[in-house]
Structure formats: C-alpha cells, structure tokens
C-alpha cells in the first residue's frame, strides 16, 4: 500500500489529499530523504509524535535523532521506538529509487499489551532467580549447621571418651590401694598384742580405715565419671541381687562420717526395716546413689546436720536425705540436674555429676527421685525404689564354703602385676592354691600341663588376650570353669563371655569374697 501511495502522491493533488486524510486517520506519518539524507518530502503530522517540522532540503540527521548513523539504502523495521512525544511508534525505513522513505505509525495499543506481558514475565523471572539464590543460601546454611552439629557431637563424644578413659586409668591403681589396705587391715587384726602394742594397733587400724574409706569414696567418684560416659550410650547396667540393707547402710555411714566430722556437722543414718530380711536390689548402685546424695548434702551444709532416713515399706525402699544446708533457689532448681552444673557462688567444688547420674540410675532401677528445697533452709531429697523382700539365709561359713575352696587350684591370668599380686595374695589368704601367668598364651600352655579347678581370666592382655585364650581353650577341650575379670562392664562384653561358655563375669575391682562365692558355686557340682 505504501508504494502505491508513494506513486500516487507524485501524480495527483486530489489523491494526495485523500492519502493525507488516510494518514491522519491511521495516524501514519512519513518523510523521505535523498541519498545525501536531505529531506525531499514530509507529512505535517510528524509533529503529532513530537518530531520537528521538516522542510525540503534540510539534513534529516540534524532534525531527527534516530536517523543519525543511517544510510539512504538501509532497509529496516523498528517495531517500537518511543517518540519524542512519548507515544510508542513503529518505524519502517524503505529505500527505493535513490530515495529513502520512512513511515511512522502509532504502536501504542500493541505496545501496551506487550509491556504488561513483558513486565510480568521479567518480574517472574527475577523472583524465580531470587528464590533460587535463597534456596542455595538456605542449603548452604543448613549444611554449615550440619557441619557444626557434627563438630559438636564429635566434641561431646571426645569429652565422653576422655572422661571414660581417664576414669578407667584411675580405677586400676585405686583397686590395688583398696586391696592392699584390706590385706594390711587383716594382717593387723591377726597380730598378737605381744608383737604390736594395743595402742599402736588401734591407731594404725584407724589410719588404715581412713585410707580405705577415702579410697572407696574416690572410687565411687570415679564410678560417677565412668557412668557419665555411659549416660548417653545406654550402657549403665543394673544387676539386682540379694542384699543386706543393714550392712549397706552401715557401710555408707562409715564411709561418709569422716567427711561430716571434718566439717563438724552431724550425720545420722537410720534404717527402719524388718530384721532378718534381705531385699533384691543392685547394692553397688544403691550405695553409689546414697554416697552421691549424702555426699552432696554434706558438701552444701556448713552448720547443723545431715540425716539419711530409710524405710522399707512392703517391697519398696523409701529414702530421705535431709540437710540443714544452703538450700537451692527456684532458678537453680531447674539447672541442678544438668551434668557438670555447680551452684554458683558457693565455693564448693566437685565434679557436678552426682545428681545427674543418681537420677538416671534411680530411674534405671525402677525408682524415682524428687527434690524439695528452700534457699537458706536446707534441702531434702526423696528417693523411692522397688526392693522386693526375701528371707535371709543363714550363710556360708558353717556350711563349709571355706573348706571347699581351700582345696581349690586356681589359675590367674592377669597382666597388671599389682592386680595379679593382689588377687594371688587374697586367694592364698583363703588357703587356695594359686598359680599366676601374665597373658593368655601362657594360660593356655599352663592348662595343658597342669589341671585347675578354676581359671580367672583378664581380657586385655598382651600377646594373647582373654577372649582369644578362651577360644583356644574351648578348641582344646578345656574342662576347667573360666571366670572373666574385666574392667569393662558393657553388656556386649558380658554377652561375649557367655557365648564362649564362661562360668561368670566379674567386673573389676573384684572383691575376693565375690571370687570365693563364685568359686564355690561353679565348683560345687563336681564335689
């Protein structure tokens, strides 16, 4: 149409007017330039789009910005150009016969629609990009958190294994201190008055008792640390057995009275239980709990007294530990159950583990613990746990347990020379014939040349460990019952020993009475 228009325009004036009318209605504007870019012709309505009026012979580049840089033979379509008036126009450059005709039309309507679409699309894409960026950052952050968490877990694990490791190391020397003082105590008690004057004997006995109690106390602290290592790993094992409560409470009283005496406070221990009755309970765990609770009470009491009152109510043991100490404020109350927490500003030191562990152990024993306290007025801890009653047997000595064991031949395999010597001496004291070797290989060798009634086998030994030796002995058809002595109290270790057919599993520090009683049971069928 535009070419037709161009021809007609040159030919006829009336047609030219009609065309101009058409241009006006369609809002079409135009101009044409020659090869030197001088204006040949132009529509008046260019001004409607904000362009200047063009006169023949003018240089188009001086008048219309978008023509700068164009050649007369450029054929080009610019779909949307914003004109000086602000109205978007469509521009067509059409070269023909040494002339360039430029058509300008209103593009407002199509542009408006285009603008809305493009705006929405671009904003959408920006949003999507932003979202992607945020997601990446979130992912990064969560990865960092995960790493941090892992580091924390690792740190906690290291701490736990460090504590367990250190406590383990402490246990062995403590065991030998307790064992040796025990031996010296026994020797001392046998000494006649001619050899040692009574007064010296009494003094020494007192000193030794103090050493003995302190060591036991230290051992119970080490047990706490060890248990703390196990708190997370569910490894605390509870072994209920027949227990004489009178003896147990007496022990606790003897163990802790030196502590109260040094602080000049009264310690009253009182057990209300029917006579001649034992209960089924894990005695060492109960002892540990009582030592923790009473120990704490003494620690936080400077004037007055600490009372340990226990009552056996049917098959339930109720214990109250009451002190007249500094008490616990409401805010502290929430925190005292946290491991390692120490009440502020009291100047009292300790591991801060006692209560955490006690609570956990009590719940493992099927009981519960509650605390009542008022700042400045003292604290009382109530503890309740199941303790089924059973009749006390008239025990052992007269039944000939000792004569039986005294004929026994026992082989001890233990690499720690202190513990080995201790076990040997303790067993010899009971008249047992003891042979001791330092590793599993030697034990196997010994058992092939000599017969024994019982083998006490340590687990961790150089050259050949306990389990390996037991496997070997099983292969060789060994008939002597084997009792494992180990520092490890984990269930998996105990299971392993059971699978290998061991007669019993003793956790160090082992008590000579325990060995005797086991020796008695495992050897009795053969008598």
């Amino acid at each position, binding site marked *: 149409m535009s070419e037709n228009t161009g021809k007609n325009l040159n030919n006829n004036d009336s047609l030219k007017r009609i065309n101009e009318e058409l241009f006006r209605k369609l809002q079409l504007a135009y101009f044409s330039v020659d090869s030197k870019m001088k204006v040949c012709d132009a529509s008046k309505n260019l001004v409607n789009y904000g362009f200047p009026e063009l006169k023949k012979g003018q240089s188009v580049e001086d008048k219309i*910005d*978008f023509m*700068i*840089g*164009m*050649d007369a033979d*450029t054929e*080009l*379509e*610019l*779909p*949307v*150009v*914003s004109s000086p008036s602000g109205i*978007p126009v469509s521009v067509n450059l059409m070269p023909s016969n040494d002339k360039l005709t430029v058509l300008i039309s209103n*593009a407002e309507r199509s*542009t408006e629609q*285009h*603008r809305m679409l*493009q*705006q929405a*699309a*671009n*904003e959408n*894409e*920006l949003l999507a*990009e932003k979202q992607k*960026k945020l997601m990446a950052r979130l992912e990064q952050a969560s990865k960092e958190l995960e790493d941090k968490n892992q580091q924390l877990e690792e740190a906690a694990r290291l701490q736990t294994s460090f504590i367990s490791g250190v406590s383990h190391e402490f246990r062995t020397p403590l065991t030998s201190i307790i064992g040796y003082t025990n031996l010296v105590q026994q020797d001392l008690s046998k000494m006649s008055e001619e050899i040692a004057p009574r007064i010296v004997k009494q003094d020494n006995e007192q000193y030794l008792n103090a050493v003995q109690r302190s060591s036991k106390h230290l051992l119970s602290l080490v047990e706490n640390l060890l248990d703390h290592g196990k708190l997370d790993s569910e490894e605390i094992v509870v072994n209920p057995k027949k227990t004489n409560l009178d003896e147990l409470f007496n022990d606790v009283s003897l163990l802790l009275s030196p502590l109260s005496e040094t602080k000049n406070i009264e310690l009253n221990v009182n057990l209300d239980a029917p006579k001649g009755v034992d209960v089924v309970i894990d005695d060492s765990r109960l002892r540990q709990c009582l030592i923790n609770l009473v120990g704490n009470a003494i620690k936080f009491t400077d004037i007055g007294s600490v009372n340990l009152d226990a009552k056996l109510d049917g098959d339930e043991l109720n214990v109250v530990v009451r002190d007249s100490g500094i008490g616990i404020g409401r805010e502290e109350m929430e925190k005292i159950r946290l491991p390692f927490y120490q009440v502020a500003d009291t100047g009292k030191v300790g591991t801060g583990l006692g209560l955490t562990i006690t609570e956990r152990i009590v719940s493992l024993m099927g009981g519960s613990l509650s605390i009542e306290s008022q700042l400045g007025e003292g604290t009382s801890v109530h503890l309740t746990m199941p303790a089924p009653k059973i009749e006390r047997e008239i025990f052992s000595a007269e039944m000939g347990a000792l004569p039986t064991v005294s004929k026994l031949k026992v082989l001890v395999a233990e690499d720690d020379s202190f513990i080995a010597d201790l076990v040997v001496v303790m067993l010899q004291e009971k008249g047992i014939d003891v042979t001791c070797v330092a590793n599993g290989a030697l034990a196997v060798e010994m058992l092939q040349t000599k017969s024994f009634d019982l083998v006490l086998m340590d687990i961790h030994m150089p050259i050949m460990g306990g389990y390996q030796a037991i496997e070997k002995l099983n292969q060789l058809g060994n008939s002597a019952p084997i009792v494992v002595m180990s520092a490890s109290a984990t269930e998996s270790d105990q299971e392993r020993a059971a699978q290998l057919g061991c007669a019993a599993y003793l956790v160090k520090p082992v008590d000579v009475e325990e060995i005797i009683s086991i020796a008695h049971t495992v050897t009795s069928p053969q008598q």
Partner: protein
Amino acid sequence: MVGDFSVGKTSLTQKFVNNVFSDKYLTTIGVKIDTVEVDDTKLIIWDVAGRDSLSPVNVSYLVGAAGVVLVADGTRPSTVENLFDIWSSVEKRIGDVPCVVALNKADLSDGWSVSEETVNSLHDRGWEIFKTSAKQGDEVGTLFETLARKIND
C-alpha cells in the same frame, strides 16, 4: 545499551542523561532514544529492551550504532556470562564497533557475585570494564565518556 533484562540499562542512561534514579522497575519495550552532549560529542543513546529467556536482543535497533555499552548486573552472574552471546549477535549485525562493559549495581556489595575468572575473560576480549552504580552514580560518567572517546578515536 544492550544486555539482559533488568540489569540497569535504562537506569544508567537516565542517571547519565537526566541525573535521576528510581528503584522501581519498568521494563523497556523496543527502544528509547536519548541525546546528551559529552565534551563536544553528541551521543544518541539507544536504550534497547533487554534480552530475556524468550526473546533475544533485537539487533535491528543496533543498525547505525557507532559503539555499544554491554550492561550486566553484578549480582546476577548469568547476566555477565550472557554478554558473550549478546556480543556475538551484535558483532554479526553491525561489526566490531567500540565497546565498553558496565558491571552494574556495584552498590549492592552484599549480593555481588562476579568471579575473578569472569572478569578476566571479559578483559581478554579487550573490553574496558566499569563497576557502575546507577543508584549512586559511581563510574557512570566515566563509562559513557570512555565510549565517546573510543568512538572518536
């Protein structure tokens, strides 16, 4: 002015020509033409609609151009990488004209994510690079003046 959508072509132009800036985003349709004197040179700036994932730069708008400002958004790495593609379509249509690169939105230092590597590869093309901020005006004058000088040389 060519580059991806929303990198700041319009903002740079408006900052340079009219010393104004707006935070509001209004996409450019087609082309908007502005004129400005730089020293004794009259620059006719064609602010072309940005490239988006659906439509490439319409290189018809570049016919007759004496130089090009490639614009990217320094907080959107893809817009920088796309400059290479955009340049090759520009070059195909109008030849190897003088060119400067604006890495825009330099004021957004938090989100800035142009790698050393990318900057090096832009340098390797022989382009002069400006870290511009249409918002604060940094390097905007230098950007256009450098291009004007290159065109006049």
